[in-house]
């Protein structure tokens, strides 16, 4: 019975979502298997083979994506960079969602002093440029993968807080929340069982939009030397180098850029579909 339900539900998954899932799976698998599938060492420089176009062959190795300004294989660097970009983006989105949504729901539910403190803190955070805050944090903590996640996560939570707060205010006044209170449910139960499922849609939208932004933020910070340290690769770092050579070597920006586009696009489509699935009204008629 349950199995039949699952298959009928799967059959209703639109083709676009299936394709997008396939793309995401390929990206994730390649990112994980990068050390095994990459044709050459991503950090191996070859100054004689600098800025070579895609398809360039040397020493029996074909450079399918071309080479960068130091003659490193772009295909290998893109593969290795995928892990960094994916990891930073998804982890920082998770961190900021957890922090932001919890604070937003708490502010919207308890109101009063808690609300004032949290929402003013949000205003303060929003008024400081994220990059400045990130620079400051990295200057104190030093660069590194986990620190980058922490910095991005802890500077981006106010956006989630605003959305979660506004939605919570709206939902908290509905009679079914009152009914739960009368039933004897505590704040934690009401927040996580009744409010969270009802505000998850808009939060998912913010999270998918932020996901793409996080990859770009990571690129920006890496470009400033505050993120991933060279010679380690990330899509952002590759592209920020490629920007300088865009007239002579378009491929440096084009390949990681195309990958980034595919990733962000897929996440957005998937997020959109997931949001619909969260709503029982669209699941079954």
């Amino acid at each position: 019975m349950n199995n039949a339900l699952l298959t009928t539900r799967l059959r209703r998954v639109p083709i676009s979502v299936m394709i997008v899932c396939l793309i995401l799976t390929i990206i994730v698998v390649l990112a994980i298997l990068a050390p095994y599938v990459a044709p050459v060492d991503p950090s191996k420089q070859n100054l004689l083979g600098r800025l070579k176009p895609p398809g360039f062959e040397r020493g029996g190795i074909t450079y399918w994506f071309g080479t960068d300004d130091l003659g490193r294989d772009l295909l290998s660097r893109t593969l290795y960079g995928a892990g960094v970009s994916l990891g930073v983006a998804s982890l920082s989105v998770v961190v900021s969602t957890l922090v932001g949504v919890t604070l937003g729901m708490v502010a919207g539910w308890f109101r009063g002093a808690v609300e004032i403190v949290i929402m003013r803190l949000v205003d303060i955070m929003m008024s400081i440029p994220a990059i400045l805050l990130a620079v400051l944090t990295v200057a104190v903590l030093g660069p590194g993968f986990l620190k980058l996640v922490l910095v991005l996560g802890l500077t981006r939570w106010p956006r989630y807080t605003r959305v979660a707060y506004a939605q919570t205010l709206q939902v908290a006044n509905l009679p079914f929340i009152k009914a739960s209170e009368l039933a004897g449910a505590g704040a934690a139960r009401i927040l996580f069982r009744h409010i969270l499922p009802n505000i998850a849609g808009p939060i998912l939208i913010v999270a998918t939009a932020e996901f793409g932004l996080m990859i770009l933020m990571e690129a920006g910070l890496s470009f400033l030397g505050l993120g991933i340290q060279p010679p380690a690769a990330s899509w952002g770092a590759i592209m920020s180098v490629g920007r300088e050579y865009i007239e002579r070597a378009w491929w440096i920006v084009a390949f990681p850029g195309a990958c980034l586009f595919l990733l962000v696009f897929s996440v957005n489509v998937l997020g959109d579909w997931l949001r619909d699935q969260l709503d029982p009204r669209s699941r079954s008629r």
Partner: protein
Amino acid sequence: MSEQKHVLEIRDVAVHFGGNGGLFGKTGAVVKAVNGVTLDIVRGETVALVGESGCGKSTLSNTIVGLQQPVAGSVKIGGEEVVGADRKKLNDIRRKVQMIFQDPALSLDPRSTIGATIGEPLIVRGVAKGKALKERVGALLQQVGLRPEHADRYPHQFSGGQRQRVVIARALALEPDLVICDEPVSALDVSVRAQILNLLVALQKRTGVSYLFVSHDLGVVRHICDRVVVMYLGRFVEIADRDTFFANPKHPYTKALMSAVPEADPEVQRSKERLILGGELPSPAMIPSGCAFHTRCPLATEICGRERPELTVRDDGARVACHHA
């Protein structure tokens, strides 16, 4: 032991909004939503609370269940004080009082199955879980005329009347002594109103629950209530047994409400004497002096603007707050 018979005792309850408070001091006039009301409800009784929008009906019902704190007075449910009760105490008291809301579409969580919704009071109070919970929920669903297998469905899969049945099942899950029905049928189609009202009556016969029935539909009130309380601008203006109330309304405001009820028979409707009130309901932030109704009352004389009439007992047992009626 006559105290024990009262499931609800309200004494001089007043609920005001605004006035002091707010970050920047005074925030304007005090809205006196409820202004000193006293009421008892005995076991198995259905009391109707009628009045136009903004007269304080909903505020009073929120106060009874402790969602709203009064500025004065006392609310006792089964002899236990609601006003000033801490969270734990309040939770214990709320076992005995539940609420049914106006719009069944908004009073069920759209993301929870109705089984989870009905079972929630039982889970959070540790009454039942697992298999026992499932059975209880099934029994409750049957009690309100739905099938146990409906428990896995979501609210949007039900019609308005069915949803209100679910709301009633949730309200009855803890076997309360008092259920406050806040206009439970006004959002429903006329065709399903009678079904829901009959269900409420049947459940009352079986469980002995009392209802405080908030409504502005006198037709509905006549159908199911034992006693009627008329509220105007935060005060009760008339309290009477149903038959007395409908046979012989006394307060001019009550008469105006009665004359506004349309009759099914056009002959009767045409011959009916219409008592149409002038003006708007005054703002509860600026309640008229004396009798609050004197600004719109056809009987008003000079004394009405000066002295507020108290509820006094009349020959047939009705209590009316009016100098002239």
